[in-house]
């Protein structure tokens, strides 16, 4: 009770603090030459109040204060402490409060970290950022307060959806939000810089850090979500082209494009309009992600909140922000014409532009696939869904040139590159195609596409390895990230092509055999855990004299009353063995799915390598 009250009022005071920030910013903007310290202090006070408010919610969860509506809806007294805490952001209201915490934290860090820059620019960034912050405050206080009271106080809570009770998913939202919200700083800063015509090499070098921070967190956030989906949803896949996954992929694509453009802007101070548009797009897509997931508009496994009023607010808010940014862009932005000898056809700039083209293409495919069903539903109430074949068909063929350009691009010089001494590029390409040809020679699959695709992935793979050992490590971050990407594509392709699975219905004691596997259902153990009853099946699986014991589990949660299946996965260096077990109502049969998935581990490792590239780039600059 006390914690909720504390949380609620510090939220209101936090909103009020926006006033002095606005006030001092405007005065300071006109008058003095140095930044008024009051702005920094008030930003800190705002951060402090929001953190207090957030802690208020955390403590309400920890002490299971069911007079708080959010706690009542999402927690239960028997839940383990760890999930009580993570339950704070496992729901709509709490996760938006977390957004606000990160928003205020980032603007404070921005103020501290931008000391050497133009004063007016810093103040304007704060002002633009305050607009976003105020929007979130109003949203939280008026439309989705995490501190609503229920009277009389319920005796017990509704519980947290058990599939969310998982370590990976406990930290997935905060990490993802750090990435999402990082794009808000880029947004405010780009608007400020455009207004002041401050877009320059200096600015690019400074904002690059923020781009890198959000990019690394977004990458890791998506990775965590994928890992969770892999072992918790029990389908053995890691990416389903589900709308909620797509909304996190879209800002990632935009942000990756932005990252590459910022490099050009930093080195050559060209393409500034494009950088502005991309920054606005990234933030808009992040906001859209929040809107789509939290408004309940998506018919998807991830949607846990259903409230159209909130959606309407976010949509209006988003519209206002986009409007402001468009006005700023068209009023203040002067396109650069001071660079007559821009660049030649064969150069690093061109290759980055080609990369941009592909990224924008991938982005539009994902955008259309995600929004078209919603659009069609609204105008004609036709229900459709767009499945993986759509994305695969449109994206996979374009990966081939994308990978090849990704390999060649970094070999080229700025402004104008020579094509002499580049024979190794051709030689490596032929070798890569040959290797891939040998792999696929004896397989009965779509031969041509796979050979060329895997060949181009190998191409990037070998080129990056060669660079790593031959060149001076002056661009090691790019090298590692690109290597990680080639490894990712290779692992995903091999994983798709060489996976095998077996689906059958078994009773305890029965066995099933086909030409490759033999699977025996040995026994079923029942045990009682803190907030669920566990049924653990014991299976022996034999494949060519290799014998494995796997123990998938069914959990019957008490509150809410939900059954989940926990996959048992045996991870080795080269493959994962994955088994899930499902109950079918009132029958002795259990639905068993056994999968052998090669290179699973490498998918996770390669994404880690990609984000490692970002991290190196971030810290290398500071030295």
């Amino acid at each position, binding site marked *: 009770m006390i914690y909720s009250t504390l949380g609620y009022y510090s939220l209101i005071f936090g909103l009020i603090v926006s006033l002095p920030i606005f006030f001092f910013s405007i005065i300071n903007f006109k008058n003095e030459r140095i930044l008024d310290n009051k702005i920094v202090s008030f930003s800190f006070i705002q951060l402090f109040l929001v953190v207090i408010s957030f802690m208020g919610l955390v403590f309400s969860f920890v002490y299971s204060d069911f007079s708080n509506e959010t706690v009542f809806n999402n927690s239960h007294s028997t839940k383990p402490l760890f999930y009580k805490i993570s339950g704070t952001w496992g729901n709509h209201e709490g996760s938006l409060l977390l957004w606000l915490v990160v928003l205020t934290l980032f603007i404070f860090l921005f103020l501290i970290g931008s000391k050497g820059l133009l004063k007016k620019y810093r103040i304007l960034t704060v002002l633009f950022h305050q607009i976003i912050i105020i929007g979130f405050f109003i949203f939280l206080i008026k439309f989705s307060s995490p501190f609503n009271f229920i009277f009389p106080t319920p005796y017990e809570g509704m519980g947290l959806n058990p599939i969310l009770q998982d370590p990976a998913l406990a930290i997935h939202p905060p990490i993802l939000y750090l990435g999402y919200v990082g794009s808000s700083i880029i947004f405010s800063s780009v608007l400020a810089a455009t207004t002041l015509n401050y877009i320059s090499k200096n600015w690019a070098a400074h904002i690059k850090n923020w781009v890198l921070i959000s990019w690394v967190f977004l990458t890791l956030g998506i990775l965590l979500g994928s890992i969770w989906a892999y072992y918790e949803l029990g389908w053995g896949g890691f990416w389903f082209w589900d709308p909620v996954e797509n909304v996190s992929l879209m800002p990632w694509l935009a942000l990756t494009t932005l990252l590459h453009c910022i490099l050009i802007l930093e080195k050559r101070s060209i393409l500034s309009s494009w950088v502005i548009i991309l920054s606005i797009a990234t933030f808009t897509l992040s906001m859209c992600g929040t809107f789509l997931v939290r408004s309940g508009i998506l018919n998807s496994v991830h949607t846990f909140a259903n409230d159209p009023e909130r959606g309407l607010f976010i949509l209006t808010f988003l519209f206002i922000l986009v409007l402001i940014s468009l006005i700023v862009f068209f009023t203040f932005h002067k396109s650069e014409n001071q660079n007559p000898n821009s660049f030649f056809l064969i150069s690093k700039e061109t290759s980055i532009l080609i990369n941009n083209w592909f990224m924008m293409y991938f982005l539009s495919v994902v955008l259309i696939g995600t929004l078209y069903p919603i659009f069609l539903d609204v105008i004609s109430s036709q*229900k459709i869904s767009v499945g993986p074949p759509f994305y695969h068909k*449109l994206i996979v063929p374009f990966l081939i040139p994308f990978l090849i350009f990704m390999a060649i691009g970094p070999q080229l010089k700025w402004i104008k590159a020579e094509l002499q001494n580049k024979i190794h590029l051709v030689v490596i390409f032929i070798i890569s195609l040959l290797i891939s040809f040998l792999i696929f020679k004896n397989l009965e699959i779509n031969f041509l596409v796979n050979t060329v695709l895997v060949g181009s992935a190998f191409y990037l793979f070998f080129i990056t390895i060669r660079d790593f050992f031959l060149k001076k490590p002056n661009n090691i971050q790019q090298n590692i990230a690109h290597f990680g990407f080639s490894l990712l594509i290779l692992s995903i392709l091999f994983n798709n092509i060489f996976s095998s699975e077996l689906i059958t219905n078994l009773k305890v004691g029965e066995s099933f055999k086909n030409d490759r596997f033999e699977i025996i259902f040995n026994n079923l153990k029942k045990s009682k855990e803190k907030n669920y009853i566990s049924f653990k099946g014991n299976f022996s699986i034999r494949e060519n004299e290799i014998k494995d014991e796997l123990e998938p589990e069914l959990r019957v949660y008490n509150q809410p009353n939900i059954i989940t299946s926990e996959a048992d996965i045996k991870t080795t260096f080269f493959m994962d063995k994955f088994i899930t077990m499902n109950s079918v109502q*009132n029958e002795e049969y259990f639905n068993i*799915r056994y999968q052998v998935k090669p290179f699973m581990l490498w998918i996770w490792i390669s994404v880690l390598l990609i984000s490692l590239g970002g991290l190196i780039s971030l810290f290398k600059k500071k030295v």
Partner: protein
Amino acid sequence: MYGRKVKLRFIFIILILLSLTLSVFLVIKSLEENVIYFKSPSDVKLLGKLDKNQIRIGGMVKENSIKIKSNEVNFIITDFKNEINVTYSGVVPNLFSEGKGVVAEGYLKDRSFFEASKILAKHDENYMPPEVKEALGEK
């Protein structure tokens, strides 16, 4: 007549327009081929021509209709006006049970037989896909 820069810019714009048209064309074509429509058992009965494409069917699993064998599961989807028999071999989600909402994805054999390739998972016993809710709407 025109400077080199103007010409270059002109070519650049044409290239962008061309690639834009190409990608829009590809996307729309692929959308047409890969979109999955959602139908209720009553919609299926009203179909003029049998759909060759993959569709989704949603409704309730009829009481006492689940029959499970070692290699397949049979059940009936109903919207309380019409019903349809479904054969399925594959993984059944945990919340798949009689009297609960279900969405099956697959191909129609005829107007009352459906071969499912996927049964969509529901993660909450109170959750019902909006489509199912609508399909059952009049009840």
